[in-house]
C-alpha cells in the first residue's frame, strides 16, 4: 500500500495527473474521493477495500466540469470495461485519463462472479482467476416460456421506481433518459408500469452493459437485474458479434440510429 501511495504521489509530482479518483477511509467507511497534488497528505487515508463505488460514473461528473484535466482513476476490471465504452461513445478522452489498475481479491471476484476481475495493467494486487458462471441465466433459460414470463413479472412487480439502477450506472450517460419520458413511462407515478420500465432499460443496456453488477447491488427490491442485462449482453454478442467493454473498435451497433433511436417515434415525426 505504501508503494502504491508513493506511486500516486510521483504521478502528482511529475504532473502526469492533476487528480486521482480513488477511495479514502472515512472512519469505518470507504468512500470515493478525488486526491489532488494540493493535498498530498490526504493520500494517507487512501484505501483499496472490497467495496465498489461507481468510479467511472463519478469520473463523468468531474469530467463534465473539468474536461481538460489529466486525471488518474482507480480501475478494476469492470471500471476498465466501462472506460472503454465511454471512450467509444466520446464521453472521455483516453489521452487525459490514466488507468491505475487494481486486481480484485478472490473474495470479491467470487461474490461478483466476475469474468475479468483485473484490468490490463495492474498497479496493486494479484491477478486471480476469472469466474465463469452463467448459472443464473441457465436457470431462467430452462424455464418454460410462460413460467419465465411469470418469473420476471413477479420480480418486476417489486420495483419501487427508485431509479437507483439507472443512477448508479456509468453506461447511463444519455442527456435525456427514456425512463423519464412521459410518453413511455408515466412520470410522477410509482410503482412503474411493468414490464415496460424494465424492458426499456434492458434494451438500452444491450451493447452498453459492461456487467459490473452495480445496478443489482443498488436495487432495494433485490430484482436480479444483472441476470437480465447479462442476457441482453449475450444476445448482442451472439446475434451482432458485439461485446461491450472491449477496447477500441466500433461503437455498439445499436447506436447507428443516434440518440433519436431511443426516442419515441412521435417526437421524430414532429421534426
Amino acid at each position: 500500500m505504501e508503494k502504491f501511495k508513493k506511486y500516486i504521489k510521483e504521478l502528482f509530482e511529475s504532473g502526469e495527473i492533476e487528480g486521482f479518483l480513488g477511495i479514502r477511509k472515512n472512519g469505518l467507511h470507504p468512500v470515493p474521493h478525488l486526491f489532488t497534488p494540493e493535498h498530498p497528505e490526504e493520500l494517507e487515508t487512501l484505501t483499496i477495500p472490497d467495496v465498489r463505488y461507481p468510479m467511472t460514473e463519478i469520473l463523468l461528473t468531474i469530467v463534465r466540469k473539468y474536461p481538460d484535466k489529466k486525471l488518474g482513476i482507480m480501475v478494476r476490471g469492470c471500471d476498465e470495461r466501462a472506460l472503454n465504452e465511454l471512450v467509444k461513445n466520446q464521453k472521455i478522452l483516453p489521452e487525459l485519463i490514466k488507468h491505475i489498475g487494481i486486481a480484485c481479491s478472490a473474495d470479491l471476484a467470487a461474490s461478483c462472479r466476475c469474468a475479468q476481475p483485473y484490468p490490463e495493467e495492474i498497479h496493486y494486487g494479484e491477478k486471480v482467476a476469472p469466474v465463469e458462471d452463467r448459472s443464473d441465466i441457465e436457470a431462467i433459460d430452462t424455464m418454460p416460456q410462460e413460467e419465465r414470463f411469470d418469473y420476471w413479472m413477479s420480480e418486476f412487480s417489486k420495483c419501487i421506481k427508485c431509479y437507483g439502477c439507472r443512477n448508479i450506472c456509468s453506461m447511463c450517460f444519455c442527456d435525456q433518459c427514456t425512463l423519464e419520458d412521459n410518453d413511455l413511462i408515466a412520470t410522477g407515478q410509482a410503482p412503474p408500469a411493468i414490464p415496460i420500465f424494465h424492458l426499456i432499460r434492458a434494451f438500452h443496456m444491450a451493447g452498453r452493459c459492461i456487467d459490473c453488477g452495480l445496478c443489482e447491488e443498488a436495487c432495494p427490491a433485490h430484482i436480479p437485474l444483472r441476470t437480465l442485462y447479462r442476457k441482453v449482453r449475450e444476445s448482442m454478442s451472439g446475434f451482432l458479434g458485439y461485446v461491450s467493454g472491449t477496447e477500441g473498435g466500433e461503437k455498439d451497433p445499436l447506436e447507428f440510429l443516434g440518440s433519436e433511436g431511443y426516442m419515441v417515434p412521435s417526437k421524430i415525426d414532429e421534426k
Partner: protein
Amino acid sequence: MEYRTVLTTCTYCGTGCGLLLEVMDGEVVGVLPAKTHPINEGKLCIKGWNAHEFIYADGRLTKPLVRKGDTLEEASWDEALETIANKFAEIKKTNGPDSLGCFSSAKCTNEENYLLQKIFRAAIGTNNVDHCARL
C-alpha cells in the same frame, strides 16, 4: 478542482439510510448510497437519491418567519424563539398546559426528538406529544 463525499443520514424518513453527498468545489451536486452502511447496505429509495435537491431550492426557508398581522416576515432566531416562548407562556397561563402539544418528526435525530418531548413534558407539563410518522 475538488470532489469529495460527505457521509450523512437521509433526512426524508425515519429509516435513516446512510448516504454520501457528492460535493464539487463546495457545491453539493449529487447523492450516492453508502455501500457499507448497516441500514441501507448501498441502496436508497427515490427520495434518498434526490435528498440533495432541496439544498439550493428557491422555496427553501433559510430564516425563521414570524407572522405579523396577515403576513409572514423574516426574523432573527432570537426574535422567533422569543415570540414562541411568550405565546406558549401566555397560552399555558390562560388555558393550562394541556392546551399545548407538539409534533416531532421522523426526520430528526433521536436526540432531537428526546429533547422536544422533554421540553413539553417537563417544562410545559403536558403529555400531548406526537410525531409526523403517524400520518
